[in-house]
Structure formats: C-alpha cells, structure tokens
C-alpha cells in the first residue's frame, strides 16, 4: 500500500509492567529518542494480552500494534510471556483472515536494561507501519476514501 504523504502511523504498544516498562524507563533515563506516535499500554504481564485487546486496537484505528515482554525464560509470572506469544500468533491468523496484514502486529522480548533496543523497536515498527500504509479501518469505511 502506498502511504499518503505526511502519514504518521498511530501505534499501540502493549507492555508488561516488569521488563517491558522498565526498558521504556531505561530509554528515558538514557535520553533515547523514539517516535512520539507510540502509545504505551501497561499490562501486569503479557500473559494478560488478549486477542480482543489487539483487535480493539486495530478496530480503533491503530496502524500497528506490538507487545513488549520479558525475555523468554525470564517472565516474572513464569510462563506469562509464552502465553502472550501464543495469543499474538493466534491474533496474526485472525488479522490475516480479516484482511489486515499480520505484519502490523509483532511481539518483542526485552530485559529491563534494553532502553536503546526499546527505542529501536519503536522506530522499526513506525517504519514498518509507514511502509504498510494507513490501517484501512481508520475511517468509517474505506469506500468513503477518508
């Protein structure tokens, strides 16, 4: 899809309150810059990620959604990030069936000290969403051309 000029993607990031959120804090402490269009939603654990949350974000107009979890094997709730990963995979299948590119959804695993990586991911996902173009659900109907 060709993105319109001046298109700034809206991105929702679902983050666990442990490593994911700490990585965001670290990014701030390190004065790392990352795109301001990323809206962070704090969850107690990525085991709380629900397919419905992801769909709600896309239905609400998000151009991309990504999930930030603790490193595999280091989840503070033991298996929460693995369960979140399985739900993200399921959500990708649903997005494909709906007609949205599964690449609009991604999951990353970080430790709390990876502030620079946190910023890189925000930049990468913004670039990916920009190349995919606007979420066709942004307007009431794509036929309206809005």
């Amino acid at each position, binding site marked *: 899809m060709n993105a319109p000029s001046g298109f700034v993607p809206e991105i929702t990031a679902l983050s666990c309150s442990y490593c994911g959120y700490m990585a965001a804090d670290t990014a701030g402490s390190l004065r790392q810059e990352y795109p301001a269009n990323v809206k962070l939603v704090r969850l107690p654990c990525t085991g709380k990620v*629900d*397919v*419905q949350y992801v*769909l*709600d974000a*896309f*239905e609400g107009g998000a151009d991309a959604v990504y999930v930030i979890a603790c490193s595999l094997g280091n989840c503070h709730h033991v298996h929460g990030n693995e369960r979140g990963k399985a739900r993200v995979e399921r959500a990708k299948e*649903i997005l494909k*069936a*709906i*007609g*949205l590119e599964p690449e609009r959804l991604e999951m990353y695993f970080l430790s709390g000290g990876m502030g620079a990586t946190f910023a890189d991911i925000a930049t990468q996902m913004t670039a990916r969403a920009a190349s995919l173009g606007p979420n*066709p*659900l942004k307007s*009431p*109907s*794509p*036929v309206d051309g809005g």
Partner: protein
Amino acid sequence: MIVAEQKPLDEIKGLLGEAQTVLVVGCGTCVTVCFAGGDKEAGILASSLRMASRIDGTPKDVTHITVQRQCEVEYIDPLADSIRQADVVLSIGCGIGVQALAERYPDKVVLPGLNTSFLGLPSEQGVWEERCAACGSCILGVTGGICPIARCAKQLLNGPCGGSQGGVCEIGHETPCAWQLIYDRLNAQGRLHLIEELQPAKDWSTSRDGGPRRITREDLRLAAEAAE
C-alpha cells in the same frame, strides 16, 4: 461436554451474504469451556466480522450477546428484542443452540458459526478428545470405563483387531488403540474375565439407526398441569 470449533471466517462471511445487521449469539455452557463459542469468542468474532466487512467495503453492524444456555427456551426468550433488530442471527452455540434459536424464532435466519465436533473432554488445556458417541446403550461397565464405540475406529465390541500395533491404532500414531487401553485397565483391575465374554452384536436402534431420539419422563412433564 459438547466440543466444537469455529468455522473459517471466509465461510461465515459467505453465510452472512448481504445481511447488514448481524447478532452473534454465544453460549455460556459447553462451547464456553471449549473456547469456541463463549462470550470472549463471540466478542472476537463480532470484531472480526465488523473489521472484515469494512475492509471489504460493505460494512456490517455486528453486535454480540451471550446467554447462559442456548439450548433451552427459558434462556433465549429474553433475546427477542435483540433478535428482532437483526437481519440474521449468527449462533456460536453448538448445533443444538442453532436449532433452538431457529425453532424459537422461526421468522429469523439463524446461521451456524461453529462446527459441532464431538462429545469429549480436554485431555490438556487446548486439546480435546472424543469420549462418547451418544449411542444410547452404554457398555462402559464391561469395558473398564473406556468406550470402544467412540474410541475404536471400527467401533469393535470384541477387540482389538489386527490393526493394533504397540498400543496404537493403525489409523495414526496419535490414536491409542481403545481395546489395548481396555485390556490394560481391566488387567490392572483384575477384571480380565470381562474381556473374555463375547459381546453380542450391538443393537444400534438406540443410536442414529433408530432415527431421531426422544426421551419422555412423565413424572417431570408439566403439560398435564397446564391443561387442568
């Protein structure tokens, strides 16, 4: 429980056709615990259909509601107003729920969103296995609590057959031989004499061969009271 799984979204979209207003009706019983048609799945399916229809350029108004038990009129009667406002009803109850809605609201198009698969249990979270064929004449008492009708590919009453190798059925490595399981269970219980008793040919008239089945309990019927 009754185990089901959702139809592919494309098939559901095809069933809905040109309908503009769709009510997805979930069920709070069997299909909730097998994660196919509960309130969560109804919400996800409604979201998916709303988004897919908008992307297709023919936006639909899709809402969802879940009742505790879709197979009894007492639970689906309160849906009358919601159903009246919908062009079609998409039931994600089992086949019984679909038919209950269709019988209760005969003027409304009621469509199935699930494929009702079998009567079974979760062998682990996320995996369900068939356990009962509802044949109407239970023989679990002589087979160590393991049903050869539901779990033997040939529904043998006097097994195993020659296709049982190393405890596995010849149809596939993931399918244990029901008669090996029965032998092992009866052996462990010291009841192997049961397997030596030849079972006569099964009377299938209690199953599907006898046509649609019906059970009547006169002590429970209220029709007589209503007629008084």
